[in-house]
């Protein structure tokens, strides 16, 4: 049986379908991932497989040798290990739906925080592990690589990952919008709250070069300074610190504002009007709200940041609609391209050659009658196979290359040369957007041989066709 995109199956569960209590029960830690891959490949219905396991999802992607539904059942049984409570949370998709699901996951459209960038890296890692374990062949490998390319396209063409949706990221984004860049800027922590340490770390990761910590209790200031790799300053040096900092994160427990209008005024003058950004994480607030009215000084409190995040989330949702359209189009094009291209030509060519060889061998054997022993019969059969393989070796390689570089003229010429026009035309109709897919895919094994190739990669000296339709 030849593998097409129809033979791609995904079974799994995610934060959409299962609570954490269920997810943690079937999560596959890295340490046993290879074992899981081994187990799944041991299933007779599975040809290739990739296992993705993150805190929000556990998914098995596979190309299957049997009816997708039957293989899906086998994967479900493996994942739930007979636990009906888990089975109810599992979803299962086949063919185009499975491809679209894979594309959506990689493009971070299926994530808890839509557009978060980690998921792509996690799937890539899962793919690398599966590849290293020899669990990935042509079809699944190509699907995954295409999914990574689609994810990149979504990222560049939409802004689904652009807007910060966590408080710390929002703070960094705002700082960059005001100051141009966080790189090389100085950050001052006023008060030693937990949240301010987190924000400081984000700012530091964004490139902030200097961290100052100031706190009423010098001891706590020293402690936090050590923790975040900053310098502690005594409380009475606040005005000097305000003069030098570009971003100030406040988190004291003071009942009254620490940064009053007068202090801010003085700071602005001392700073020669360089812009200053206050992130006020304290409740009650540390910065007098009127300070925001001063030219060049910007104050965001917890509620303001929350509002920004809400706004960003809405913007991401809007972008996600555009991203979904891209994913849908790409998935359709990919499946269509899989159906067109070189595979059917090669399959047909191979089948014809084999039919002719078989017929000729049978005729010869019939003519020679009973004068041959078993070894001689096998010798004649092997001879015909060897001639066929040698003869088809070069055309097969060329057609495959033409398919990989989407050389339609060459493929048509090949089809015409071998008189297999009719069969190809039937496939062409299904592939209007063939050129969209597979542009980044390396030359792959003939689709028909993937099942075999996945398990035992072709050695350098082996005729490629020898693994065909095996």
């Amino acid at each position: 049986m030849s593998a097409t995109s129809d033979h791609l199956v995904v079974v799994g569960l995610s934060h959409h379908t299962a609570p954490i209590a269920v997810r943690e029960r079937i999560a596959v830690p890295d340490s046993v991932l290879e074992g899981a891959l081994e187990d799944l490949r041991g299933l007779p219905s599975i040809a290739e497989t990739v296992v993705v396991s993150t805190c929000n999802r556990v998914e098995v992607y596979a190309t299957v040798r049997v009816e997708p539904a039957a293989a899906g059942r086998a994967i479900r049984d493996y994942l739930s290990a007979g636990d009906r409570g888990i089975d109810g949370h599992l979803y299962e998709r086949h063919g185009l739906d499975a491809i679209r699901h894979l594309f959506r996951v990689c493009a971070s459209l299926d994530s808890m925080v839509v557009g978060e960038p980690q998921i792509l890296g996690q799937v890539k890692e899962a793919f690398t592990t599966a590849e290293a374990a020899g669990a990935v062949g042509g079809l699944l490998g190509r699907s995954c690589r295409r999914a990574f390319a689609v994810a990149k396209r979504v990222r560049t063409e939409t802004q689904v990952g652009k807007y910060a949706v966590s408080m710390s990221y929002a703070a960094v984004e705002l700082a960059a919008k005001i100051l141009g860049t966080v790189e090389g800027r100085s950050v001052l922590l006023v008060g030693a709250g937990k949240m301010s340490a987190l924000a400081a770390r984000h700012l530091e990761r964004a490139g902030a070069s200097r961290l100052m910590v100031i706190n009423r209790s010098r001891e706590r200031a020293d402690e936090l300074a050590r923790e975040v790799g900053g310098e502690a300053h005594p409380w009475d040096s606040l005005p000097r610190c305000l003069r030098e900092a570009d971003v100030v994160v406040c988190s004291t427990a003071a009942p009254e504002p620490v940064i009053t209008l007068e202090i801010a005024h003085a700071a602005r003058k001392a700073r020669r009007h360089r812009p200053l950004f206050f992130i006020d994480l304290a409740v009650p607030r540390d910065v007098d709200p009127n300070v925001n009215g001063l030219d060049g000084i910007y104050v965001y409190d917890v509620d303001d940041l929350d509002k920004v995040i809400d706004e960003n989330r809405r913007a991401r949702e809007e972008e996600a609609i555009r991203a979904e359209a891209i994913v849908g189009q790409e998935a359709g094009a990919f499946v269509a391209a899989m159906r067109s291209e070189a595979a059917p030509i090669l399959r047909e060519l191979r089948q014809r050659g084999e039919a002719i060889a078989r017929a000729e061998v049978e005729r010869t054997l019939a003519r020679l009658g009973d004068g041959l022993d078993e070894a001689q019969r096998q010798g004649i059969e092997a001879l015909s196979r060897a001639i066929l393989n040698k003869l088809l070796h070069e055309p097969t390689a060329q057609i495959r290359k033409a398919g990989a570089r989407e050389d339609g003229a060459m493929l048509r010429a090949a089809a015409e040369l071998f008189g297999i026009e009719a069969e190809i035309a039937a496939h062409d109709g299904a592939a209007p957007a063939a050129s969209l897919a597979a542009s980044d895919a390396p030359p792959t094994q003939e689709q028909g041989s993937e099942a075999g190739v996945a398990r035992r990669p072709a050695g350098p000296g082996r005729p490629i066709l020898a693994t065909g339709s095996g």
Partner: protein
Amino acid sequence: MSATIFFHLGLIAYAAAAVIFFAHLAKATERRARLAGRSLLIGFGFHGVAVAMRFLEISRGGAFRLAEGLSFIAFLVVGAYLLLGRWYRIPTIGAFVAPLVVATLLPAHAIPAAEVGGNRPFDGPILPLHIGVAVGGVALFALAFVVALLYLLLEREVKAKKPGAMFRRLPSLDLLDRLNYQLVLLGFVMLSITIGTGAFFSQSETGIFFALRSKEGFSLLAWLVVALVVLLRQTIGWRGRRVAWATMAGFVLLTSAFAGVFTGVSL
């Protein structure tokens, strides 16, 4: 072929650029930004030919009309924007520049009759220098005006804590502020030269070193405003909102001075 045809072709390309820039403003895509930029460049090419042809006519003794002045300024504004694109790629500025240019060129075309008073062919280097630098200065201030306006719009969003259209489409406040000041500084130098050469020219022609007509008055006022901005920036670090407002005021004053060139109204 007459300059008018090239002028029209340029105007059409500018208008197309303006439309595409607005489309980019509504929904930012790389393709739109590129298309708009190219459209503007094509318009600039046609416009350039038209300007060059008219310039030749004038230097042969033709009249320097309001239409030419505006057209030349618009030409320089587009040129400055395109040049700016080499360092800062901010299509949102284009979305303001392109319509501004179209708005400048349309009336220039509708009222071509106004001519510079007492007009005579260019003789000697002072008058062409005076006009060239004056027009260049106005063009720089026009661009600075757009940047200052964008700064204020973005600043308002950041202060109001409602990141919206400007927040997502513009670079940082810091960059806009620096860009604005650079344009203003360069414009200030050109304005100073304009006033200097103008006074010299005025004395040699009329014997009066500085006649307080509207063009001199508004130019001087604009110069004072901008000089103050430059002074305060250099001494106490003035920047941001106030500089943006002052820039816009300076441009409006300059436009008034420019109108005065053609009306010759005394203050």
